[in-house]
């Protein structure tokens, strides 16, 4: 009797519409908001690194003011990238099995290696080679805790002779070149986790990794614009408009490419009209109306495209203040849009039954391991880490090449430039 009542109650719940497999009738999707946050954070890492690579590899000198900021941003977010996954696992204490006994046919098993490679072999190494000379200088001038930290980070290598610094620059550049495919790999793999699930017509798509990489680049660049402008505002200095204009130009072109590929994906889905298309259309226009059509497509893509595109055309006629306003608004919109995109993929893919006969709903909880409190906390945590990193490694009072000689060339280009 109880079971009958329970069944009737579950049947009457508004979260199920049509027929869904009995095992799909759960209160919330198996992969909920934490798995939305996870690819978002990973994407921001990849994008921020690409922004830094523009300086190192492609020698875009105008972007030098944001080089270290971008790398530190990538680091702050990378340190938090595994947390949402860890909180989500049924047995987090067994997480190291992924690296100790990996199952090589699983895309998820590769994450441990890709993550470790990217953190240890790319990001930390590049940062160390870039900062090494500064660590040596600062360890001489700074005392107390800071002095100890800087001394520890020199790892005992205190040679700052010209050949040593030149070697640092060369190795840093090589790491950066290796880092670009690594960043693509890091996020392409996240896309592959979804793209490889052929059971789900929304996810199982060869374009998925590419879409994830492109949206990652877009979101990471937007994050760099956002953080740079925020930092300038917090420090009460005017942003370097040459740098900002160029950052935004790159961001604009990245959005153009990303939106084209995502548009192509939808065009292809609609035209080929495979088995699940009726369900996908229904989800996109009803349950995901606000996050997909309004959030991702209009506010997150079209509006920034128009704003940034018009800035490309009439930049010289617009005052610096207004330009900064437009850039900041666009960056925030893009960041929200990419978050909406992650939501649409992860949650959207679980709003319909694999029987293709019914729909589920998702109402986010407030607290709990799948609640928005934890996920918001996980999104804020990298910013807190970044503040600490900026405090210690991007302090204006510390003498660096940029601080002492504004616009000075980096040792990568002219090793003779000294403090």
């Amino acid at each position, binding site marked *: 009797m109880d*079971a009958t009542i329970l069944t009737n109650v579950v049947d009457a719940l508004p979260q199920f519409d049509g027929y869904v497999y*009995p*095992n799909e*009738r759960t209160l919330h999707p198996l992969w909920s908001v934490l798995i939305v946050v996870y690819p978002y954070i990973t994407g921001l890492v990849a994008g921020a690194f690409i922004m830094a690579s523009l300086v190192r590899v492609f020698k875009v000198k105008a972007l030098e003011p944001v080089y270290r900021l971008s790398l530190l941003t990538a680091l702050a977010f990378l340190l938090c990238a595994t947390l949402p996954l860890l909180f989500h696992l049924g047995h987090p204490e067994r997480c190291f099995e992924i690296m100790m006994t*990996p199952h090589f046919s*699983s895309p998820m098993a590769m994450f441990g290696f890709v993550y470790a490679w990217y953190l240890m072999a790319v990001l930390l190494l590049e940062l160390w080679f870039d900062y090494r000379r500064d660590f040596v200088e600062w360890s001489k001038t700074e005392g107390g805790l800071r002095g100890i930290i800087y001394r520890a980070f020199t790892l005992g290598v205190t040679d700052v002779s010209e050949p040593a610094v030149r070697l640092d620059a060369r190795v840093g550049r090589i790491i950066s070149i290796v880092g670009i495919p690594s960043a693509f790999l890091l996020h392409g793999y996240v896309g592959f986790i979804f793209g490889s699930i*052929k*059971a789900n017509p929304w996810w199982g798509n060869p374009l998925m990794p590419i879409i994830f990489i492109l949206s990652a680049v877009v979101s990471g660049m937007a994050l760099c614009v956002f953080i740079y402008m925020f930092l300038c505002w917090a420090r009460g200095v005017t942003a370097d408009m040459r740098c900002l204009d160029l950052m935004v130009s790159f961001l604009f072109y990245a959005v153009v490419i990303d939106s084209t590929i995502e548009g192509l994906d939808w065009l292809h889905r609609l035209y080929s009209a495979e088995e699940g298309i009726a369900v996908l259309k229904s989800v996109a226009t009803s349950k995901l109306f606000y996050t997909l059509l309004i959030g991702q497509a209009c506010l997150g893509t079209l509006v920034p495209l128009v704003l940034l595109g018009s800035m490309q055309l009439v930049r010289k006629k617009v005052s610096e203040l207004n330009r900064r306003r437009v850039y900041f608004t666009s960056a925030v919109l893009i960041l929200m849009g990419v978050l909406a995109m992650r939501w649409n993929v992860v949650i959207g893919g679980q709003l319909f039954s694999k029987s293709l006969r019914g729909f589920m709903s998702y109402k986010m909880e407030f607290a709990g391991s799948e609640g928005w409190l934890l996920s918001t906390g996980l999104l804020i945590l990298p910013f807190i880490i970044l503040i600490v990193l900026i405090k210690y490694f991007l302090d204006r009072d510390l003498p660096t090449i940029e601080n002492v000689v504004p616009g000075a060339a980096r040792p990568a280009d002219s090793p003779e430039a000294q403090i």
Partner: protein
Amino acid sequence: MSDNITRRGVLKSLAGIVGGILAMPAARTCKAAVQNVFAIAPAPKGYDPFKHKWLMALDVDRCIGCGLCVEACCEENGVPEGHFRTWIERYVITQPKAGSGEMRGETIVDSPDGGKEGFPESLIPKEDILKSFFVPKMCNLCENSPCTQVCPVGATFDAPDGAVLIDKNYCIGCGFCVQACPYGCRFFNPITHTADKCTLCYHRITRGLKPACVEICPSQARIFGDLKNPVPDDPLQRFRSTNKVETLKQYLGTGPRVLYAGLDEEVR
């Protein structure tokens, strides 16, 4: 009366009660140990998975939707409430509207509580129903199982005897396999916090018994057998030779092995 109640008698009774209470934990431990050997331990010693190839076949026309198989499965395997290792779907296909030019009307599918309690009478008037049938569902024992492919630690695997199993002491509970199964056969067990699925009652079949759902089915809609060790007049071989068999969602390339006879195009 007073003759019956002696000091010795009372003391004996008390000693018996105390002894019983003291023996309870030991008895529980023994019971658990026995269960561990006979029920929870998946296969007995000496069982060679390479010498068997298990297969299930489902006859849609024979299923009466009584739900006994679902109930037996849940009882036998301790399946948590609201989750299912096997379930029954009821398909009701309505008459096409007059003059619509359609072959059939709407298809309504339901599976209240996995069909465990049977099915209440359909709300659709009988005269509006073109046809109705029940379809038992379970793990499709795929040849190229997408669920085992994606497991990041290899906690779920294809046994050589055809069963697809999960090591619940090894599973990290990421849920990737649940997402990868196109048939909705896997679920996240809220008690063990790991993935869970049909094991073909591995603890039974490795001891020469049939799976609980097969054992209890009153209409022989479920046929179970060992392809490597056919018995005389093997029901599985007979099923294959006398029916036109199909499998579910073949186009996904998962190579489902569970055979169906009498499937309708609406079933997926």
